[in-house]
């Protein structure tokens, strides 16, 4: 292994060590397990199958997964910068891109642990316990299948990855831990609510409803919701679909992930120069 991969791998390992040594993330995973398991227990959907379980989880997931992802990402890049470690790392032959890629990869792996494992555990629970109310009559699984839950899990992780990446970008911009928290919350609210509010606004302003499958896919939450309806819940309805354009929605989730990474890299690479330029302009004006 040579070249950029070595740098990425080294940063990745270091970041993974950071994640493993942060006990808060384990608590986060446990909390998520309790929340998701509790929702299913209270909602009752998990008692009969995967599709009703996903129905019960869809809306809470839209808030819980971005929240967990922001918690994982909001200090990812800020901590090293604030402590001066980034400056030390920069003295080694590691480029900014390699550094950002390594950190994000590690945080995404952490996401799989913190979000994926609780959701998978709940899915296994549904698999083991879901059964019809009564065995007096002949029963069958209908259209329900663990595969549908696996699809849901994949969408959950895609959504989470997009938010981890966006949160990391925010953390690169933030100047202090406090501002990172504030910016992270802002990103969370903007992501969970903002996209759909914009969609509502555009529809209110006269956009054609025929554009919904396309425009819904543009925001991470809309893309996630559309994909879940299209490939998980909607399968139980008569086969027609059309909730969202699948390619566009997946592209959107991947795109937001890449955009976050690029923004983070750009901020780290050029932020100081931008700062300096701004300072020059400011002092020039002051004179």
């Amino acid at each position, binding site marked *: 292994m040579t070249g950029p991969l070595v740098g990425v791998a080294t940063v990745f*390992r*270091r970041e*993974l*060590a950071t994640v*493993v040594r942060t006990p808060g993330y384990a608590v986060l995973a446990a909390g998520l397990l309790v929340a998701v398991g509790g*929702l299913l227990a*209270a*909602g*009752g*959907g998990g*008692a*009969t*199958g995967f*599709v*009703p379980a996903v*129905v*019960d989880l*869809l*809306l*809470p997931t839209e808030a819980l997964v971005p929240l967990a992802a922001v918690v994982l990402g909001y200090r990812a890049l800020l901590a090293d910068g604030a402590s001066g470690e980034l400056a030390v790392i920069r003295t080694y032959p590691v480029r900014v891109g390699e550094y950002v890629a390594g950190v994000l990869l590690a945080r995404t792996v952490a996401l799989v642990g913190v979000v994926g494992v609780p959701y998978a555990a709940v899915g296994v629970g549904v698999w083991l316990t879901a059964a*019809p*109310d*009564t065995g*007096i*009559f*002949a*029963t*069958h*699984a*209908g*259209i*329900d*299948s663990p*595969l*549908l839950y*696996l*699809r849901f899990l*994949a969408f959950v992780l895609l959504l989470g990855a997009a938010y981890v990446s966006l949160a990391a970008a925010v953390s690169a911009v933030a100047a202090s831990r406090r501002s990172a928290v504030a910016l992270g919350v802002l990103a969370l609210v903007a992501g969970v609510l903002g996209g759909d509010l914009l969609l509502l606004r555009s529809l209110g302003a006269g956009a054609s409803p025929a554009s919904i499958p396309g425009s819904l896919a543009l925001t991470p939450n809309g893309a996630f919701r559309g994909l879940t309806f299209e*490939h998980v*819940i909607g*399968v*139980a*309805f*008569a*086969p027609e679909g059309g909730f969202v354009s699948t390619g566009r929605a997946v592209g959107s989730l991947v795109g937001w992930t890449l955009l976050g990474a690029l923004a983070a890299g750009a901020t780290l690479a050029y932020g100081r120069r931008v700062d300096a330029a701004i300072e020059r302009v400011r002092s020039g004006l002051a004179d």
Partner: protein
Amino acid sequence: MAVFDPYADPSRTLRIALAALLLAAVVATAGAFAADPEAAAPSPVAYDDVVELGLSSETDALMAGSARVPRTQVFYSQLQYVVGYNGVESFAATLDDGRTERQFGYPIAAYVETFDDARPGTTGAGLFESERLGEWTPADEAVYVVGSEARSPAGETVVPFRERGAAEAFVADHGGRVVDWETVRGRSFDTDSAATVRAMAPERWAAADDRIAAAERRADRPVSVVVGEDEPTVEAAVAAAPPNTTVVVPPGTYEETLTVNESVTVAGDDALIRGDGNGSVITVRAPDVAITGVTVDGSGGQTRDPDAAREGREGGGPADGGAWDTNIQLGYGHGDAGIRAIDAPGLVVDDVAVEANASGLLLREGSHAVVRDLRVDGADEWQDGFMGITGMRSRVTVTDSRFEGGRDGIYLHRADGSVVRNSTFTDNRYGAHLMYTGDALLADNAFENELFAGITVMTRPSGNAIVGNDVRNSSAGIQASGTRTYIGYNTLVGNGLGFSTSSRGSLYERNVAANNEVGVRATTVVPSSRVVANDFVGNAEHATAGAGALRIWADGDRGNYWEGANLGTHEPGERAYRPTSPVDGALHRHVAAVAVRESPAVALLDRLRGTVPGARSGSITDPAPAAAPYSPERIDAALAPNAGPVHADWRAEPDERDGSTDENAAMNARDRDATSGGIGRETRRVDAEPTVTSARATTGGAGGA
């Protein structure tokens, strides 16, 4: 376990394991998207294990012999239970009604019973029959004979075959033509709209008026003999009287038992006919006999005849041994009674009182009777007595009568088309108890203090109407199983259970359930009925649900009125109400439940809950709970202290009151007059109590009777 060291190079094994894990995850995820969850069609199951919808399989015509209705079994995408339809057309009719798809999803697989090797044909009455059971064939691979002479009790029936050759052979014998599945599903089949089902009650009320008027004319005969003047005893007078005359029984006590073998009217005037404590007091064995104005007591106390039942089983009765139905007919039909009618159609009983030791009035073998102003005073303990009226294969028309004590007020067994109205029942075991009795009307009766239930309908008859009754202070108000039943305008107050929705493909509307322990109980596993515009007030629990898929109780945007459902910060009717949920169910009793209901968690869970109803279990949801009661006057009347029975003015209500959604309101059942056929001998299944556990009870089950 080794300490996690991210900086050390992972061992070869670990690397391979990680790579394998990653590969497995990628493959599984890719597989999840590549695999088509609907690809594997389930195999057909034994029909005994399906949940039956469609035509009733327990009509007299079908029980009579080898006649069959071709069966279908369907696997729906959102429903865990396999649904069986009696009649291919019953299933085809659901394919375009939308309602079934909303509840159960779309059919993943459907199998029809094909009769290639089953020796299909028709009975003498033109009903479809086959010597053997058919085989299961996917619906889209089968071919169908339509327009042949083969019929089901409901009308034309479609006969499926696996091979075209067999279908053409059937066409050669019985007419019709051979079509494929697409053609069958494209045909439009009559389905009962709510209006059709609703119309049953007024039609039967009018028919009862006609029967009563005819009975009055029949009973009004010239006087020929006066007891005490012309003949010493009533029996002698009856024997002496020419047909179509009246025997007058002046005031007094007549200690005798008698048999009426002529079509005469026995008209008492404050006369008491007292038996000797053995057998029945008056036995009628002639058509068109009328008995008026007498009081009868002193019958024997034998409630049934075990010898008759045993002989029936061993002798000329059905060969299939434990035929529970036959057992009941022979046993219950042969007890003692104040007045007993055997093969005596046209009987009129008017202004008669019976002090019953066993049955008050016992009718069997086609003793179609009109009963007005009958008063039966039965035993204080129901185990000691028997039925006020026992009707065996005899259509009874009862009006303005009173039944106190004893076992059941009225017990009807294969008494299709019976009408019981304007009568009062108190302190019975069951008030009115129907078995294998369809197309009946129970209307405007009052029931009180019934030990088991006011009205109970067992087995799976079709087309009963239970309208405008008032049941209070009983274990249960109305428990009616069957198909295509209309249960409307009943008032159920202070019972253990108001009513149950045990009848499939039925309409439950405009009932008031107030102050019951449980207002309504959902029992059938697969929801197929409409429950709409009912009022639930002051019940400890408005509703409970047995095992089965989620029930959606509304018709479009019209739901039921549930006291407490609209508490909270939303517009009335805007938020779905789930009477079976611990929070919603407590709203009318504990206002604090409102605060829980408004929590984000509950709101989140509520949002999408109705999305896949068939896949959810065990609860009831009303997507549009009404803002105000549908029948406020009746609620007020029901809750007024010391008020008598509530009268629902259902005959005056215009039919178009809420008719806008009726056009697409298919009832999943279309066996119009399905039970008006011949008389049968065979029974298969007894829904002993209309609950899930006993829905499978087979012959020999006690039947609770």
